[in-house]
């Protein structure tokens, strides 16, 4: 008797949960969820468009399972291009043995990016293959593709539903990489409804098992429009390693122009 009561009430609770989860009550068709997923991602991209250029300093803290720590100091300069992917200059300051090394990237919405690396000890500029999207960036838990700019054309989308996350009402959107060289089968992205900021990303490896989780912390608004996190934490569930990013000195509309991004500026970037 008691068991039956418990089971009945359990069913009732579950039914309630399901209806509250999907507000419309009607299950969405696949086409609808794909469209919704795309629209949410487009809105997020739109809200982060028009900043023209930005510069920031990034501190990377790498931690392994044993708790050993290693740090990287990186400066980035990015020029927003509306008809193609962004142009960016990444300058390494630490570890000290790579100080002066810099990296120039012309990202493209479709096809491979153009990338050059400057090696200060040899004074050599090397064009490098941009196919290595899945490889680790400076030994961290971030791959090159994790750090590249978000472009709508890079993914297919699917809306999964809504969820409460750290006090935010969020959309959950699946993103399937269009690039066959991606290290992922999919990402699940939590985007808050209030400001369309990415709060969390789950990365699924090529075997479709959960590989990493990235969470963003302490968003601040710049120029009354653009939101940037103060820090982010990437945790690798399979290796137990993690990498924390801390940003500082965010600046927008600093006056960067196209000629700040070429092989000459790469050689003298600091």
């Amino acid at each position, binding site marked *: 008797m008691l068991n039956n009561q418990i089971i009945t009430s359990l069913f009732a609770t579950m039914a309630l949960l399901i209806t509250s989860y999907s507000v419309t009550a009607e299950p969405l068709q696949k086409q609808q969820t794909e469209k919704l997923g795309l629209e949410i991602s487009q809105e997020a991209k739109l809200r982060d468009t028009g900043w023209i250029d930005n510069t920031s300093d990034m501190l990377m803290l790498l931690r392994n399972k044993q708790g*050993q720590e290693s740090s990287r100091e990186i400066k980035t300069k990015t020029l927003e291009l509306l008809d193609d992917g962004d142009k960016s200059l990444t300058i390494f300051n*630490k570890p000290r043995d790579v100080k002066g090394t810099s990296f120039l990237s012309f990202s493209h919405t479709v096809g*491979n990016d153009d990338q050059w690396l400057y090696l200060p000890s040899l004074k*050599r500029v090397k064009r490098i293959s941009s*196919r290595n999207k899945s490889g680790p960036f400076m030994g961290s838990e971030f791959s090159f593709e994790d750090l590249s700019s978000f472009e709508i054309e890079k993914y297919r989308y699917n809306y999964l539903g809504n969820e409460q996350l750290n006090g935010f009402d969020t959309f959950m959107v699946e993103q399937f990489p269009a690039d066959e060289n991606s290290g992922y089968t999919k990402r699940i992205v939590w985007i808050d409804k209030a400001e369309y900021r990415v709060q969390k990303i789950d990365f699924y490896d090529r075997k479709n098992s959960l590989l990493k989780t990235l969470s963003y912390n302490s968003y601040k608004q710049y120029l009354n429009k653009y939101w940037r996190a103060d820090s982010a934490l990437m945790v690798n569930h399979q290796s137990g390693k993690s990498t924390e990013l801390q940003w500082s000195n965010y600046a927008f509309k600093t006056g960067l122009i196209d000629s700040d991004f070429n*092989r000459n*500026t790469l050689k*003298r970037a600091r």
Partner: protein
Amino acid sequence: MKVVQKIKVILLICLSAVLLPLATSAADFEFNGKVGIEQRYFVEQGQYENQLAHSQASIFIEPELYLGWNQGSDTIIFKPFYRQDSRDDERSHGDIRELSYIHASDDWELRTGIRKEFWGVTEFQHLVDVINQTDGVEDTDGEEKLGQLMLNLSLVRDWGIVDMFVLPGFRERTFGGEKGRFRGALVVDSDNVSYQSSSKDKHVDFAVRWSQTLGDFDIGSYWFHGTNREPILTPTFNGTKLVLSQYYNQMDQFGFDVQATIDDWLWKLETIYRTTDEEDFWATQAGFEYSFIGVFQSNADLGLLVEYGWDSRGEADANSPGANVQNDIFFGSRLAFNDMQSSEMLIGLGADLDHNAFSFLVEANRRFGESFKVSLDVRLLQSTNNADLLYSIKNDDHLQLGIEYYF
């Protein structure tokens, strides 16, 4: 002495360029650099008299001072270098690697002073790289260079970057001394140097280079007119002792380099045509590099390299010194572990296809902590053909351990 005078002039120019902006605005100042200790162990005794037996140690320092103002549009860099060697006096040497002032504008840059400029795309031989003299006592790979005094105007245009160079003054190549390894039976005499040009080491050289990226292709081409960086070595008596004298002729050199970056493939080609009063020749180094990403179910990347070197002068024979790389093939594999310590390993093999001569090298390095870098190199050299350069250094197989501290 002449170099010292030049340095004084540059210092004065730099100082006057600095003082005004420093007085008016905030400048960025950085001081960093590296110190290192290196230990070589040679497996066999040297072939020649007076060469060091097995062990050679050295220490070096290379600090760098940087000053930038106007948001980095104006910069001054000073980078001296000094190495003290335990055995070879000629290897104990200092150099100003860099003492330069750069002013950058939107579409042009003026670089003045002592600098290093690298050109080229291949890995096993750097044919087109011509601006700086080789610091031959530093390493056997010829990648270490001496600072070169220059005036370089760089123009950025839609159709490419044009670099114009005026190079006042010339640096003689450095060679190991009597006790040093990596030499032939005769020692190169650093005091017995002659030039084709009557202005000797004050000859003003010129170069102009165009480089451009066209889709997947990075292309560069240049013309160089001036003192040949490679001396002609001739046996001469210095008193009663037979030594090698150095003769630097004048040359005109055309160079072309291209790299095609297509998916995981890098296709590379360098070619030069050099004309001097003694000889005219073509030389080419070409090959590819292919990368495997995430090998052995790890984060490691494996790059495979194959390059071929050809020279129209052919092998050395009784009548001509020929070329060292005239029909040679090179294989390499580069393993990057992509770990926290940036561990890397490079294995290379070079073989002459005309006669018996092989070189084999392993270079491994890894970061320790935040500021130390440790490297371990092994080089094996083999030849039975006494016309090949490798024959004279065939007993110089060695291990080299290096520890560098970055500050």
